[in-house]
């Protein structure tokens, strides 16, 4: 295949994957009448749709909620995941193999089984309509434990022994000696966890009814499906754009990390 055909196909791909997003941003700025057209530029650009969204729904609050929830979960998954991964790879204790098997097993359980009972548990604990309800059930993942364990196995035993001989406690060993060596896994687990929680809608829809506690994708979903957008395309596209902007910003800075992390976790998962 000649290289020019290759480039033509690749550029068609760029248009195919990129155009809808550009169209979304442009549509969010256009007056209602012009949104249907394929043109991306209009002389009548205005921020009216954004004003309508911001006046109608607490979108900034939702952004903060999403941030709080996603960051808490990510930190927790990294801290606890690395602790268990460390214990499984560098410490000796009874039931180590059993624990490892249990973790492997939990990865195979489809979430469809535990979804309803987990919701009921939240009701009993009184954690519906709270940050705790959004954060607690995701605080640890089998996937992160396995990634950490696998990575820690490659850290030479002699290094660990040397630190122990010097009287290093296990906590200091993990957080001061092993962590700095583990940047790649920490980034992978961090990005994958953060994106999963940031983009999740099903769980927030189930346990959050209170508008001021809704996460960003949830609030936008409600806005679009619940009639508040009054079936107007402009505000819908504006809300979608607002939802996409944080990800667009993060992605444009860290795209290499995003792609590498998600690809490597996909292969191992």
């Amino acid at each position, binding site marked *: 295949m000649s290289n020019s055909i290759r480039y033509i*196909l690749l550029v068609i791909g760029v248009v195919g*994957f990129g155009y809808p997003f550009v169209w979304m941003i442009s549509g969010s700025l256009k007056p209602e009448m012009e949104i249907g057209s394929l043109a991306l530029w209009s002389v009548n650009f205005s921020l009216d749709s954004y004003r309508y969204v911001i006046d109608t729904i607490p979108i900034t609050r939702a952004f903060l909620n999403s941030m709080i929830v996603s960051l808490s979960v990510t930190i927790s998954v990294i801290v606890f995941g690395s602790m268990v991964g460390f214990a499984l790879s560098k410490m000796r*204790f009874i039931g180590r193999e059993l624990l490892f098997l249990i973790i492997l097993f939990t990865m195979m359980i*489809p979430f469809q089984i535990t979804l*309803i*009972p987990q919701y009921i548990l939240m009701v009993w604990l009184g954690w519906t309509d709270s940050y705790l309800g959004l954060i607690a059930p995701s605080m640890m993942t089998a996937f992160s434990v396995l990634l950490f364990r696998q990575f820690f196995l490659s850290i030479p035993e002699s290094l660990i022994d040397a630190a122990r001989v010097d009287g290093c406690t296990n906590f200091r060993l993990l957080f001061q000696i092993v962590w700095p060596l583990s940047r790649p896994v920490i980034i992978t687990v961090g990005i994958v966890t953060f994106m999963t929680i940031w983009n999740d809608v099903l769980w927030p829809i189930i346990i959050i009814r209170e508008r001021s506690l809704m996460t960003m*994708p949830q609030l936008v979903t409600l806005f679009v499906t619940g009639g508040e957008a009054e079936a107007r395309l402009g505000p819908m*596209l504006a809300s979608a754009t607002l939802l996409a902007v944080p990800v*667009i910003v993060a992605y444009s800075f860290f795209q290499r990390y995003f792609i590498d992390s*998600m690809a490597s976790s996909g292969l191992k998962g």
Partner: protein
Amino acid sequence: MNIVKRVIAKYNDSERGAFLFILPYIIFFTAFVAYPLIFSFILVFHRWNIVTPMEWIGPGNLIRLFQDDLFFKAVGNTLIFLVIHIPLQIVVALVFALLLYSKIKGRGFFRSVYFFPFVVSGVVVTIVWMQLYSYEDGVLNTIVMWFGFERIPWLVHPSYAMPSIALMATWKNVGLYIILFLVGLQTIPSQLYEAANIDGASKIRQFRHITLPMLNPTIVVVFILSTIGGFSLFIEPYVMTGGGPMNSTLSAMLYIYNQAFNFSHMGYAAALGLVFALIILMVVLFQRKVIETEAYS
């Protein structure tokens, strides 16, 4: 006696600190994995709307499930989704991975554009595509009419709606699989192609007899990941169609959600979740088996 001795020996050998490291996971596992799992098996045998006390009805929920046409329609819809989504995904991802796998300028740029829809929230993608698919004045129908065809009833006709959602989902996820195939292509030793060139094998034969077999592990991963993803199809129909028209986009997850949270049929929803999870496990294990035997035959 021997076992006791061994356990004691092992206990003395184990580090006390280790317990502190795994304690958080044990608490988490008990509360959010083991307990819900056990409770789901109890819930299956009850009628319960969460407000009034639970009522034991034996296998009632399961009997009802096997007579519930709508559940089987929802599972069927999900399978229709998968049957369109997976092959399309593999073909498109493979084509783009092959296009990218050569000395090409701006490879990083192309990669990041193709990958972007995968990173963005499904809600964003769904809202945008809802407009693109609009029957009267959607962008896609405008293009279709340029070429002189009739408008396509993307989301409004029962036999078009699920394929349309599958097309959108492919567009959203294919970036991940392009990258996975690229990684796979890079692991194929170049000597294989050199040897084939010397033997005079055509590019197409090289693709069939070197590239495809060597990519088999990646294809298995893509198959299983997109199967699991496809079975949890929820937000796309929830936002786009609400399951319509005529329940043609009612996915199994959406049906379970409706039973639990619109009708408060907790016991029945738990039964649906359990049976659906068993279906998922069976399909995934079956796929594994088929693909693996294909590979070694």
